[in-house]
């Protein structure tokens, strides 16, 4: 689809892109096409439409910070020596000169103090890693809260979850490399986790470390995982993620002219490409500023790893904080010995069971939702979080769980900053980790449903103008005016929720269908998911509402009858529970 550019700012070309003489770019393009035949694919994709919304750019932060990671990472490999061979440090940092340390640590210090820009690059690499994972998470939340993971995008959601897992592992292997005190402490804890694995754990630990902890193999092994194995898989999966994005076309918010059948927005060339390219520079720039101004992982202060030393505030990077928090709030003495074999529940549960379980739950979300709703349609229009109250509440519950576990991982820092007791914080977290998500679920769902009601009120009765009228008898009422048609349409551009009903006889009296049990569970879940939702008004209800409003306006203008704010009292919404819309 082409655009009339005749009226665009005169600095833009106003003539068509086909020049009379083949331009150099044109001849290069034909040279390439003669050999690669790309024109067929390009003709569609160069002007591919991307809808514009800030929340659609969160994944881009992740993409661009990954590019920064690749660039800065390559720079660091030029000096970093991933060896645990013992050397005596003779570099520029006074306080460590003469100390024995691994080559890895010595080269990390060399990059920091003797390579110009080396410290900047190290810090940019580390900040970019923090931002990479954080932006993946924010992007994931956007996708979940808007229902963008529904069919046909479930597989892309799964790829995204795997990217999050790999990003986290990549981060862990990365911050373990300098072999400083903090990273060594982290590796030792990881060794403890491995050893807690039933049956094969001890051998897994010995194989990974090439013998007893710490050995001299772990850093070279983590290094190759960090610079080759995981980045390779990450690149491949990011490519798949993007290809699926292009194939499915981006989701969009509903609105006038924006339907399930189309996508409305700017073409990739030039606007979207410029915005995305510009954003790359901005992400890069912000990371460079952070790298230059804010200290991160000052390995020289930690000193080289020594298994007899430790520092207060020994924490992993933020994305490993939540399993660490779960680890911290486990009660004492959670260990059993069965037939002489030790099972460490205190490590098994928070590290080896709950985090993988959470990841599986996350990956299954679109499939579970699809199964419950029985919805087989493709979805390209996003839902506002309030219009899927149960899903929104489930996500907020998961976030609450995550957030509490995360906070528990920083309980010592919270204790000193808030002058609290780590013991009290831990006791609180032990309860809150169970109750918090439930409470969050309940509050969020009710909140969403209230917002749905308020939307319907706006549709039926208009918005509150703030104009108070006083009738002759002294009654006060606020004037409501209808909202504009665009907003009104946008508010109604959403699906009606259909509670899934069992085939055949819908109620208990029916004959059991072959797989009636799972169907009944499904129907029950569907009803749990949808029954309290507020549906958009029907056309009849809207007309009645408008009629009412006009009538009211007439009355008010005539002032022969007071509009006292009670004129809609009898009105109840269809399909909702029995709570009246307004109870005044």
């Amino acid at each position, binding site marked *: 689809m082409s655009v009339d550019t005749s009226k665009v700012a005169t600095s833009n070309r106003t003539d068509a892109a086909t020049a009379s003489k083949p331009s150099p770019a044109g001849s290069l393009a034909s040279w390439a096409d003669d050999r690669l035949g790309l024109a067929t694919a390009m003709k569609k994709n160069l002007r591919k439409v991307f809808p514009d919304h800030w929340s*659609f750019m969160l994944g881009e932060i992740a993409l661009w910070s990954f590019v920064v990671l690749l660039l800065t990472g390559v720079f660091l490999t030029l000096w970093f020596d991933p060896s645990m061979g013992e050397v005596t440090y003779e570099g*520029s940092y*006074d306080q460590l000169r003469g100390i024995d340390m691994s080559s890895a640590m010595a080269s990390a210090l060399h990059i920091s*103090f003797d390579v110009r820009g080396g410290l900047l690059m190290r810090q940019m690499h580390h900040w970019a890693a923090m931002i990479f994972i954080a932006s993946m998470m924010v992007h994931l939340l956007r996708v979940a809260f808007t229902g963008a993971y529904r069919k046909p995008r479930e597989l892309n959601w799964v790829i995204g979850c795997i990217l999050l897992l790999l990003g986290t592992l990549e981060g862990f292997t990365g911050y373990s490399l300098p072999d400083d005190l903090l990273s060594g402490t982290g590796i030792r804890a990881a060794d403890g986790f491995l050893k807690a694995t039933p049956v094969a754990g001890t051998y897994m630990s010995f194989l990974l470390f090439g013998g007893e902890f710490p050995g001299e193999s772990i850093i070279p092994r983590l290094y190759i995982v960090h610079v080759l194995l995981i980045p390779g898989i990450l690149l491949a999966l990011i490519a798949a993620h993007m290809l699926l994005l292009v194939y499915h076309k981006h989701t969009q918010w509903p609105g006038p002219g924006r339907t399930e059948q189309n996508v409305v927005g700017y073409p990739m060339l030039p606007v979207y490409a410029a915005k995305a390219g510009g*954003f790359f520079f901005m992400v890069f720039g912000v990371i460079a500023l952070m790298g230059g101004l804010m200290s991160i992982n000052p390995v020289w*202060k930690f000193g080289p790893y020594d298994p007899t030393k430790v520092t207060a505030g020994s924490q992993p990077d933020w994305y490993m904080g939540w399993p660490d928090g779960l680890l911290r709030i486990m009660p004492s003495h959670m260990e059993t010995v069965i037939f002489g074999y030790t099972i460490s529940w205190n490590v098994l549960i928070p590290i080896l069971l709950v985090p993988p379980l959470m990841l599986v739950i996350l990956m299954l979300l679109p499939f579970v939702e699809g199964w419950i709703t029985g919805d087989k349609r493709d979805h390209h229009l996003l839902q506002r979080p309030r219009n899927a109250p149960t899903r929104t509440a489930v996500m907020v519950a998961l976030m609450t769980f995550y957030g509490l576990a995360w906070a528990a991982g920083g309980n010592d820092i919270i204790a000193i900053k808030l002058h609290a007791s780590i013991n*009290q914080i831990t006791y609180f977290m032990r309860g809150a980790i169970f109750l918090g998500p439930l409470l969050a679920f309940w509050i969020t769902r009710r909140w969403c449903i209230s917002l749905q009601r308020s939307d319907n009120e706006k549709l039926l009765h208009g918005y509150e103008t703030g104009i108070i009228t006083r009738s002759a008898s002294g009654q006060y009422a606020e004037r409501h005016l209808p909202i504009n048609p665009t907003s009104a349409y946008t508010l109604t551009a959403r699906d009606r929720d259909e509670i899934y009903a069992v085939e055949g006889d819908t109620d208990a009296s029916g004959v059991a269908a072959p797989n009636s049990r799972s169907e009944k569970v499904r129907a029950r879940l569907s009803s749990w998911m949808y029954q309290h939702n507020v549906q958009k008004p029907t056309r009849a209800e809207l007309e009645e509402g408008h009629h009412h409003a006009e009538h009211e306006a007439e009355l008010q203008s005539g002032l022969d009858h007071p509009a006292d704010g009670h004129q809609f009292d009898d009105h109840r919404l269809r399909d909702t529970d029995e709570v009246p819309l307004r109870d005044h």
Partner: protein
Amino acid sequence: MRVLNRTAGRLSRHRRGPLAGLAVLLLGLLISGSLYTAFAPAQAQSQASETDQIAQGKELFLTSCAFCHGKNGEGVPTVRDGYQIGPSLVGVGAAAVDFQVGTGRMPMAQPGAQAPRKKVAFDDDEVAALAAYVASLGPGPAIPDESDYSIEGMSEEEREEAITRGGQIFLTNCTACHNFNGAGGAMPRGGYAPNLHGVQGKYIYEALLTGPQNMPNFSNGNLSPEEKRDVIAYLGSIQDTPEYAGFTLGGLGPVSEGLFAWILGIGGLVGAAVWIASHTTRSKKDKVNA
């Protein structure tokens, strides 16, 4: 103060310049001079004035300390939550008094396991009098002399060695509670290990010697006086070293780093995304074709 300070990165290099040597010499003279004026008269005075000082200390003790520590510093036996309220001061020595009173920890506002630093309640003479009195109750560690914890007067090489060794001792014995940066850390049941930044060498030495409150002591049989001196030298050196990497974000490690990555990094970039995707201003005018 000049903001851009060329070649100030290394303390040792800074000191190597000809003028720096002179400055050190002058500083040394100044310090020894003032030390002389501070201590020499006291030494010169007779046994009698020392007794006066103890008497003055006892008077102060009776009004400010005896309520918790007993009239003769014998302590009160009350134990609450496992902590003895007002322990005996017999044998704690002048060093303990100088630390506790000199840093404002004593007298405490209320009994408890943690004695927060606050405004110092006594002047230097009064602290010295109190210390003299408590020291007279029983033999205990004396207030360290400047020479005990200062690395002045050592050769450049010795100094560097001392700092490096001090760093290793610090990381082995102190960081577990006080953190790698000396920024402090959390202890059980609401306790905390305080921040060591800006604490005078004398007080660090005294704390090591006497183990204030819940802190274990590092007596001379544990950490030798030279090792204590090295730790103090290391702490001084990391405070004098420039922050090569920029703002330290509290020096608390990965938790504060994570917080900044989210608030500044993600916050800033989401802000940028909002700007990029926002609608530009629109004109009511229609385009006039040229």
